[in-house]
């Protein structure tokens, strides 16, 4: 027997085992017959029913018992405890993550999603997501205004969101209900909410609402606005340009012709001093004649040049004179057109009160049209950002040679949009209290075609005796269409701008407004409504003309001023680019005012006519004066060309005279020569 450590027998195979342990825990777990025989041979049953073995065992037996003990230990249970424990550790880890981290991740994800839709910072505080209950809650949510980064577009207080958990596991966010106890908008921010383009203006935003239609009595503004429709300013500018062009063209040519004429004159003067009697020979005379003959082409050329210039200059001058004469007619036509816009004899938009109301309505409704446009923009971004990820094409199955693929049996699936907010309610205060606000939103979806219903929205703000209510629908299925009804009751009115033309400093009162607004698929905006202003209080400026007095009297006497209006625009006026909006308005006081004004209408009309003419003439003065000056310059050029032609005639006459004299001298010389040659000859 080798020296060494004795092999320890496992505790399972103690010297004495109870019958229960041996018969139920040991033997059933030994399946090899020889091992069973070994154990049954080693342990013998005692009188008390237990099993005992010899105390001292050989190493081989002890080693065998150790292996059998390991087999007995392994042959129990169905589950692998180690691996299940590992799984449990992972589950605990997930639970810990869920408790401590996943809320922060969801919060960050939601903030990013809101920033994507509103293009401004979004902050959420105290978010908790309970997936099993399908509930998300937060203490506060604020989204900054993209156009006013130091203000919040809206802010929600303590809110609860009920989600469909099953849809979440399919990657769809379906909000059954969102309720919030506190909703505010336009609240100030401590830090800027801009997330990109920091150069974007954060100060007072430009009112990019409607364009001005007209100001009835501000002639300067009227001419500015109607500049595109007037013909005389363009004609005056054109006349001046043509005169400049003509002057530049002809002065150059006249200068060139005069240069050539001077050269010709020098040569002609040289011939003037020639005495035919001083020429002794025929050759000399012929030489002189040749010189004269050589000047004729130059003379004809210069004459043609001057004649052509004169003719062109004359034609241009006459044309410019005709255009200048026509200016008077154009000015009259323009004055007539402008007066038609300011005619005080009728009602409608041409009346002063409607003209006063129009710009105010433009500002007020413009604000709501902007809100409508922005709501449409945000909803479209939601549809766009939801749609581009939802419909990724299914990966085609790889049916390679080793991959078994059967036939697919289809089952109906309820298609859900990527995001759906079924109902949202937010309120602040309660009805009857000093301040109450309520806001609701329904069926806001990233895929409106799946939702099958338009987005419904509304808001109600009540403060003391004032009420503002908006109800609308936004349908993004197919094209985009937004319609909204706006009601504002008991709102204070305090105007101090745009009243100068009617010599009012201030107009105060209370108004009730009812309007409907519609934004169509092509961006066309239209709508209409009625404003009723009561409890009017007026402050007049010091001076009051006939118009101011009539307006003051009409408004003071009226119980109520009612303005009915309609507006439309082809491109949405709420688009950032801005669009031209046409607004038509009529008031209940138009006729009254017109009647009051009709008494002084003739004088007023004449006065307006004079003012219009003065203003228009003042605008045309500069161009017309410049044009006239240039035309005078053309006249001077014409005179120069006439002088040139006279000079040319004089030179022609001189050349003819000298030629005649030379020819006579030649004849004379020829006769003398013949006499000399024939002297002393007798003819047969």
């Amino acid at each position, binding site marked *: 027997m080798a020296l060494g450590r004795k092999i320890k027998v496992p505790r399972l195979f103690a010297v004495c085992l109870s019958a229960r342990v041996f018969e139920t825990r040991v033997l059933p*777990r*030994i*399946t*090899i*017959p*020889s*091992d069973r025989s070994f154990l049954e041979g080693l342990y013998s049953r005692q009188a008390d029913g237990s099993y005992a073995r010899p105390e001292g065992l050989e190493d081989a037996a002890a080693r*065998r018992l150790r*292996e*059998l003990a390991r*087999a*007995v230990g*392994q*042959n129990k*249970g*169905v*589950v*692998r405890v180690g*691996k*299940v424990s590992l*799984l449990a550790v992972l589950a605990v880890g997930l639970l810990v993550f869920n408790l401590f981290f996943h809320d922060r991740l969801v919060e960050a994800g939601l903030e990013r999603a809101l920033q994507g839709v509103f293009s401004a910072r979004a902050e959420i505080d105290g978010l908790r997501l309970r997936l099993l209950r399908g509930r998300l809650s937060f203490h506060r949510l604020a989204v900054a205004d993209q156009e006013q980064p130091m203000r919040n577009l809206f802010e929600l207080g303590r809110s609860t969101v009920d989600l469909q958990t*099953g*849809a*979440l*596991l*399919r990657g769809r966010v379906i909000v059954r209900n969102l309720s919030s106890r506190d909703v505010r908008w336009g609240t100030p921010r401590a830090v800027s909410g801009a997330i990109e383009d920091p150069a974007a203006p954060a100060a007072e935003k430009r009112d990019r609402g409607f364009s001005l239609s007209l100001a009835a009595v501000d002639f300067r503004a009227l001419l500015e606005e109607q500049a595109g429709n007037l013909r005389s300013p363009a004609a005056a500018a054109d006349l001046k340009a043509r005169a400049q062009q003509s002057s530049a063209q002809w002065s150059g040519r006249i200068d060139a012709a005069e240069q050539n004429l001077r050269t010709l004159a020098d040569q002609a003067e040289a011939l003037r001093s020639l005495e035919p009697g001083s020429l002794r020979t025929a050759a000399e005379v012929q030489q002189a004649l040749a010189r004269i003959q050589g000047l004729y082409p130059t003379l004809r050329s210069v004459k043609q040049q001057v004649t052509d210039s004169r003719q062109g200059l004359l034609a241009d001058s006459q044309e410019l004179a005709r255009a200048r004469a026509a200016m008077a007619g154009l000015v009259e036509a323009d004055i007539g057109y402008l007066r038609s816009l300011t005619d005080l004899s009728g009602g409608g938009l041409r009346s002063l009160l409607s003209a006063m109301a129009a710009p105010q309505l433009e500002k007020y409704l413009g604000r709501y049209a902007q809100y409508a446009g922005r709501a449409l923009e945000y909803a479209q971004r939601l549809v766009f950002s939801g749609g581009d990820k939802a419909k990724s094409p299914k990966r085609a199955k790889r049916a390679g040679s080793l*991959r*078994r*693929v*059967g*036939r*697919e*049996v*289809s*089952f*109906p*699936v*309820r298609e859900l949009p990527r995001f759906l907010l079924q109902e949202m309610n937010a309120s602040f205060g309660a009805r009857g209290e000093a301040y109450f606000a309520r806001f609701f939103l329904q069926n806001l979806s990233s895929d409106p075609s799946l939702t099958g219903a338009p987005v419904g929205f509304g808001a109600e703000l009540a403060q003391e005796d004032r009420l503002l209510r908006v109800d609308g629908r936004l349908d993004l299925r197919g094209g985009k269409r937004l319609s909204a009804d706006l009601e504002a009751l008991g709102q204070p009115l305090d105007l101090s701008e745009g009243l100068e033309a009617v010599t009012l400093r201030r107009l105060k009162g209370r108004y009730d407004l009812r309007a409907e607004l519609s934004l169509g698929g092509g961006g066309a905006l239209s709508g209409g409504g009625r404003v009723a202003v009561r409890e009017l209080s007026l402050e007049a400026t010091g001076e009051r003309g006939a118009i101011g007095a009539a307006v003051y009297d009409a408004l003071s006497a009226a119980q109520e001023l009612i303005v009915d209006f309609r507006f439309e625009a082809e491109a949405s006026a709420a688009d950032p680019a801005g669009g031209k909006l046409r607004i038509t308005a009529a008031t209940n006081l138009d006729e009254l005012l017109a009647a009051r004004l009709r008494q002084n209408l003739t004088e007023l009309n004449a006065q307006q006519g004079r003012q219009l003419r003065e203003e228009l003439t003042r605008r045309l003065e500069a161009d017309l004066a410049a044009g006239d000056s240039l035309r005078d310059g053309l006249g001077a050029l014409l005179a120069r060309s006439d002088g040139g032609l006279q000079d040319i005639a004089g030179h022609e006459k001189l050349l003819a005279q000298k030629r005649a004299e030379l020819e006579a001298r030649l004849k004379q010389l020829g006769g003398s020569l013949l006499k000399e040659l024939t002297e002393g000859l007798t003819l047969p």
Partner: protein
Amino acid sequence: MVRWIATLVVAVNSNRRAGEVAAGIASALLLALIPGGNLLWRVLFLLTFLLKINLAAELLFLALFRLLVPLGDGLLDPLGHFLLTLPPLQGAFTALYNLPLMPLTRFNDTLVMGGLAAGLALWLPAFLGARALVSVYRRRWRDRLAGSRIVQIFRRIPLVSSVAAAAAKLGVGAAG
């Protein structure tokens, strides 16, 4: 692979429960009948790792059955189609398909459904049969083979000697 074979040899020739080996073989049959690459197969496979099933038997027989199962696709496909289009089950299948993650199991594939049905039906018979075979082997052949001349010659084959060496490392003892 050698290690798997050695582990199986050890398990069959030791006191490990015959049921573990049999469960491994039966599970291999079930997994082989269901086409892979879907959530159902992966969950079932993961489950076998958590239970006391002889993984060596499972993996070895899975490889073997996968070679043979395509021959049975002609029967599995119509079986799956029959089950998936059974009118009384349409409501259940539709509800199942609309549950989160269920479409990933691809249970609406005829081979998957046919393989699952056939695998579940054959699991118990396969288990019982394999367990009986292991018990018979242990009772009648194990001890006789351990010392036979044929086995001695067989052990000299290189692959077999590798298996024996690996088995020895795993502590065969009773395998001799």
